[in-house]
């Protein structure tokens, strides 16, 4: 009978030790988890630094390419200033081609910087709404930098009368 008692004591002891170990392991883990928070924060900090570095590296690469991009923009999207007279005749034929009666056509030339020249074209035009819209569409569709800066139109006996300001950019 005594042996049975001892066996029960031993097994109960093992059980209690097991429970104590389990509690210890979970408590230890919770305390460690808390201290691991600092490591995690440091990792996060370094990761965000890495992201910032990569973004800056990309920005640096882009800025290094800026000269090339600007040169390409000038050649692809600005009109060469040497073709100004050709541009004028093309533009005026565009207005005529759209059956608009144009008057007070004026060109104002201004240097934006040493290379780029801004030409403001102001004119009054009269005709049908559809023809005016077609002119606007034709200007919108041009690949190079030419756009209508401002426009005012009113009803007139022949359809509509408009004051139009167009801006064109040339490269020397």
């Amino acid at each position, binding site marked *: *009978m005594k042996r*049975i008692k001892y*066996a*029960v004591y031993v*097994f*109960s002891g*093992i*059980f209690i*030790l*097991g*429970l104590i*170990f*389990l509690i*210890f*392991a*979970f408590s*230890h*883990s919770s305390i*460690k988890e808390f201290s*691991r928070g600092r*490591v*995690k924060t440091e*990792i996060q900090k*370094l*990761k965000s*630094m*890495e992201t*910032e*570095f990569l973004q*800056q*590296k990309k*920005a*640096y690469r882009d*800025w*290094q390419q*800026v*000269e090339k991009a*600007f040169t390409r*923009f000038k050649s692809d*999207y600005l009109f060469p200033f040497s073709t100004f007279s050709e541009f004028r005749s093309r533009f005026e034929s565009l207005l005529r081609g759209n059956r608009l009666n144009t008057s007070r056509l004026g060109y104002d030339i201004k240097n*934006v*910087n040493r290379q*780029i020249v801004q030409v403001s074209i102001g004119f009054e035009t009269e005709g049908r709404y559809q023809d005016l*819209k077609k002119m*606007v*569409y034709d*200007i*919108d569709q041009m690949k190079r*930098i*030419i*756009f*209508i*800066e*401002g*426009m*005012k*139109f009113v*009803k007139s006996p022949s359809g509509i009368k408009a004051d139009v300001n167009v*801006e064109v*950019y040339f490269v020397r």
Partner: protein
Amino acid sequence: MMKKIKYNIAGQKRVDWFQLILFLAGLFLVSLLSIFLGMDRLFDETRQERLERQELNLLKDKLTDVSQMMDEHQEKIGKIKIKWNSRVQLTNRLIASKSFSMTDIFNMLEEQIPDGVSLSSVTMKNDAKSGIQLDFVSGSFQNLMELYRWLARFRLSILKESVTPKGMAKSTILIKLKNEKN
């Protein structure tokens, strides 16, 4: 025949071996499970900690010279910006102006203006912030209300409104377009 009377005169109860072994085995299994769970928790914790330390060291090694490089990049970007910023800004402005489509505005106005309302004048600039000023004439005030309802999806300001003695309604409004040039 007379039934024999039996007395249990033992000092201690008889042991039920089956129950006892079952109880001790259960106790032992629970103890083993506790130890196993505890060990697993501790090892897992140590493994995770080791991985995080490794990751931290790796990042530290990788980013040793980063601060210095970032300063160098910043300085170089600064120098390029001083030289190119005005040209970049001009380019961006020109691209934005070219992307602004007046044809789209014409199309939008054609779709929005209801029957019975006519447009007497339009003023627009190549700049979404300035908005488009429109003068309308309508045979009735009701038609103007219909027009306002249509144009309410833009930022709409009514600048002037009048009704003539003959019942002709006139209105000057300003609309600001969204999603243009942002």
